[in-house]
């Protein structure tokens, strides 16, 4: 490294980030507590307010849409994670990395466009046209 920085200067951005994160989290929860309406019933107390009942037979059939969404989530999630290593070497690779990432994003977008058009994201499909999910 070209010039040695004092320890405080090195740690300062991290400290800022930690403080900011904590404040943010506390603030969001606090605001919710302060302003939200309290309702208490069976549904509200269950672990997942919407979706699958956690207790009961494990052999229930679910709509295939759950799986599709789960798969798509994993796909896009992993693609997003790919940004981290990219960010690490970005400075070294300079413009090349920029164009590479543009290309990558474009490809991801094509995929997104494809599933959108194919109707995978439409949760409530018309019963008469359930052929739409290809």
């Amino acid at each position, binding site marked *: 490294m070209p010039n040695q920085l004092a320890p405080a200067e090195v740690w300062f951005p991290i400290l800022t980030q930690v403080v900011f994160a904590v404040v943010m989290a506390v603030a969001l929860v606090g605001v919710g507590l302060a302003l939200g309406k309290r309702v208490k019933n069976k549904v509200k107390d269950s672990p997942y307010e919407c979706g699958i009942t956690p207790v009961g037979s494990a052999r229930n059939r679910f709509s295939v849409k759950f799986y599709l969404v789960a798969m798509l989530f994993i796909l896009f999630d992993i693609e997003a994670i790919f940004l981290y290593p990219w960010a690490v070497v970005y400075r070294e690779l300079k413009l090349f990395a920029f164009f590479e990432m543009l290309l990558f994003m474009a490809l991801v977008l*094509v995929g997104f466009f*494809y599933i959108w058009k194919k109707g995978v994201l439409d949760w409530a499909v018309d019963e008469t046209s359930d052929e739409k999910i290809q």
Partner: protein
Amino acid sequence: MPGNYMPSAAELFRFSPELLLTAAGTLLMIFEAITSPKQKRSLPVFAFLSLLAALALAVAASSDPGPAFNRMLQVDGFATFFRVLVMAIGAVTILISTNYLKQAEHEGGEFYSLVLFSVVGQCLMATANELIMIFIGIEVSSIATYVLAGYLRDDKRNNEAALKYFLLGSFATAFLLYGVAWIYGTTGTTNLSGVRGVLLDPQNAPNAILISVALGLVLVGLLFKVSAVPFQSWAPDVYQGAPAPVTAFMATGPKAAAFAAFLRITMWAFEPVKNHWIPVLWFTAIATMIVGNFAALRQSNVKRLLAYSSIAHAGYVLVALTAASKTGTEAAMFYMVSYAAMNLGAFAVIAHVARKGERRVEIDDFAGLGNRQPLTAAIFTVFLLSLIGVPLTGGFFAKFYVFKAALDSQLIALTIVGLLNSAVAAFYYLRLIVIMYMQPAPEGVDTLPEPSLGIRTALVACSLATVVLGVFPSLVLDIAGRGASFIR
């Protein structure tokens, strides 16, 4: 390590076939999403033309051979040979598929897009000069093929095939990747030329045990891809279950690419320690030929029969690899070309006869084909004769050169086993010919429609290739010879 990462124009040109195919595959997905069903008819045409364009680019790129992307790829005669081969296979697959998909009421751009992506992966495997690139190539090719194997989602057999292929494929690739890790740990590089350099360097020769472990793991991955014994068990189930055009593709394209990678790894990177891998391949070759041929004898399902037959053929190619010589490499390259021609053709006939739902894939369904469709039967006979290895077909010279290479390397026992095996193999191919010509079609059999334009084109192309390879083998052999000289 700093440096200019921006690839030069020459490098991009060398990589242009893959770039083109990727772009075409992506475009196909967009088209699929936005076009009307009627417009979708032109999607296979688009895919076919882009394959031809990529093929032209690959030929053009061979005029300026050299490395690309930090020596991760090596565009040379060898790479061009296999690139052109897998692209041609892709193109023929598209010809076979269109009508099949129409009958199955599953037309869609995705199919062609997946074929293109798979071909891209196979091209990568052919050009890779780097273990990681080979791995990426295998994955790109395989994942697309997994999906293709299960393309008809409503078909149970398709589902089973896809799942089996996927699970076992991942299992095998894990071995390969683990082997790559060991190689990196032992030699400090994953570049094939680098590995070769380390192995050649007498000063710091790596530990023989570590190299053996690494090599063993990599071999498992590769032997799986070429369906060699004992890693062959997936092939019959998957080939039988997948749609016939996809089987045609799986049996030829990925296998050709896998042999390309196999040759680069054994004959280039690990050539200095060939005493380590020759005995392994020797045993595998014998086991593969025997298991493939003897299991095929008992099959009544034609797809399964050809699946075992393709295992046996992998055994013959392994004989050429065991020879570990330039002649052996040439023989293997030639073998893959004629193998591709005759197998694509044979599967095209099966796809044609099987028709919707593939209910007609038993041997008896071919009864009387000689009378019902003489030309189709005659062309199928050409493929079968070539598979037997009758002279004046590509299959004959393929075997001829393989055994010549083996004998040149003093592999006498292997040659004898191979020759006897090819005698046994005649038995089950002949059964098909007998049934076609010497058994009348059963009463009340429904009429077989004339083959579609695509199938006809594919059949003519494949049978021409099979015969030309048998009459003028030097046409391809010369190119193979020049290609093989790159990797010694």
